[in-house]
């Protein structure tokens, strides 16, 4: 078969690109070395069909009560405290009723105490999460076993689509190196690096060894963590007794944090 130089070069070039390209893709998508039997869950791990929280802020009286929950989380997870507000990274924080439930706000006849009461806000671990839907690499994904919305820091490309998608402002991005700003270092847990998104991950590393989330443990009963699908769990019992609301339920993301309204004698 006769072919001129240009045709030969084109054929060679296209074959090389296709060969290298498909080789990379095939080996990249290929399985790893581990056999299925080699990795197994810890038998101590806590299990649930769908983890959820009931937050009763009437049990948090002073600023320190709130700060204890925040510090419990931020300290064991090496969450940095940056100087500039625009770079701030937070997994759990406080804000008042008007900001936590903005669609229900603009009510000047509302109970003043409730309006000024601080709520503890963190990732809602939605059952129909918008962030998971938009992530192009599945770096954020919903755990099939128990519904926690996870964050794979190794895979995140830092596109911040999830931050645009989250209607609750639960996610933070590492705009600058977090390490210098980590006040209290927990050597048993990694930090993050620049260019990845992070958020509350329901203390999955503690659940894996049978412990409760740090914020719940430090909250003195204000944050109760349990299986929403188990009708006998403490969270379901609380939800049966008290009136609870969720943030922005009309958006259909099915958040898993239920806030008690009108708990205790005072709100």
């Amino acid at each position: 078969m006769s072919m001129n130089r240009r045709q030969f070069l084109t054929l060679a070039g296209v074959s090389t690109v296709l060969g290298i390209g498909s080789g990379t893709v095939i080996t990249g998508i290929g399985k790893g070395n581990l056999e299925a039997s080699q990795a197994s869950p810890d038998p101590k791990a806590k299990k649930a069909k769908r983890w959820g929280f009931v937050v009763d802020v009437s049990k948090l009286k002073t600023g320190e009560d709130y700060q204890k929950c925040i510090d419990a989380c931020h300290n064991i997870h090496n969450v940095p405290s940056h100087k500039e507000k625009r770079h701030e990274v937070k997994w759990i924080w406080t804000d008042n009723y008007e900001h936590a439930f903005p669609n229900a706000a603009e009510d000047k006849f509302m109970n003043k105490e409730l309006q000024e009461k601080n709520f503890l806000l963190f990732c809602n671990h939605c059952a129909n999460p918008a962030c998971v839907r938009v992530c192009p690499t599945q770096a954020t994904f919903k755990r099939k076993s128990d519904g926690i919305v996870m964050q794979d820091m190794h895979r995140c490309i830092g596109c911040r689509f999830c931050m645009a998608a989250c209607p609750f402002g639960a996610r933070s991005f590492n705009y600058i190196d977090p390490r210098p700003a980590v006040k209290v270092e927990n050597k048993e847990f990694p930090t993050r690096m620049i260019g990845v998104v992070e958020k509350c991950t329901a203390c999955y590393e503690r659940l894996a060894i049978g412990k409760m989330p740090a914020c719940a443990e430090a909250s003195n009963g204000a944050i109760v963590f349990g299986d929403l699908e188990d009708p006998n769990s403490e969270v379901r019992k609380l939800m049966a007794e008290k009136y609870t609301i969720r943030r922005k339920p009309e958006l259909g993301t099915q958040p898993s944090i239920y806030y008690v309204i009108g708990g205790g004698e005072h709100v």
Partner: protein
Amino acid sequence: MFEKALSGSGRYWAWIGFLLAVIAVGFLAYMKQLNEGLGITGLSRDVSWGFYIAQFTFLVGVAASAVMLVIPYYLHNFKKYGKIVILGEFLAVSAVTMCMLFILVDMGQPMRVLNVVLHPTPNSVMFWDAVVLNGYLMLNIIIGWITLGADKKQVAPPKWVKPLIYLSIPWAVSIHTVTAFLYAGLPGRHLWLTAIMAARFLASAFAGGPAILILLALIVRKYSKFDPGTDAIQALAKTVTYAMAANVFFFLLEVFTALYSGIPGHAHPIVYLFAGLDGHTMLVPWMRAAAILAFIGLGLLIYPKTRENEGTLKFALVAVIIAAWIDKGMGLVVGGFVPNPFEGVTEYSPTAPELAITFGVYAVGLLVLTLLYKVAIAVREENPAVDH
């Protein structure tokens, strides 16, 4: 054919040198961003997309606008566009290149970008955006280069190019629709959660893109022997007119729904853009200027005498381009993040390194455009376009 880009006048090389200098500065700024993180930009926890993504959004529209030449010429045999189609296709190549570069410089971990290919996620609009942008780039490179090569040899292009050309028509619409879907499917951002987002994007693209192309054609006519033809320019100007009219109309529809419905969450972003919110008014002068320029440009375009006069036409087109750029390149992205999910306001403005990187990417796009146009002009100066 590429050797045609390697010979030129002193002015040509001075322009190339200037572009390379801007690219070098942008590159150094990007190195700083890779080292220190996106914290050197004006982005924040509340406004997590800014100038880079805004430029990407605007340029996707410019890239899609090539279809406004392809449809009349290839589907409806509008011969007047014969000379100018190649300029539109090469503009699309340059614009898509800039789009992809803007996405790359916006990423926190760009070295991991292949994860999008290694872990394909069909439910993510961004995955599809990557697919359609790369596809469109390939399509336009192939179509442009093959048709131009055929002109050089004074033959009709090979038959297999025709299906690719037909494919590029819905593909062009798809790149901008998919980009609009990035915004329009997010539940928490009131400015973006509107069905008319994709339609508005396309109208703005078909106004701004051909406007840029006309100005480029006029520049080409001034600095070379290649004349795209007054008929082509006037026909394209009519396209800009209708598209801009639709664009302005769609925007007014948005304003009506937001303000007449009275729903606070719905109205707040538009109020922030045009009047300010809680005393934050950074974007207000820009948005108002854009509105004024849009109406002036549209008026000059609608009135035939000012559209046919090339002096006023140039002014009208610049006004339209600036208005479309402010709308997409500044108001849309930032407005989506203001107010934040807690109804608070965090403002955003780009920093100097951010602007340096932006200019660097624009310079890369202009370089690609210059080189491709040089080739196209050189070929066309020697050989007229072959009817196909």
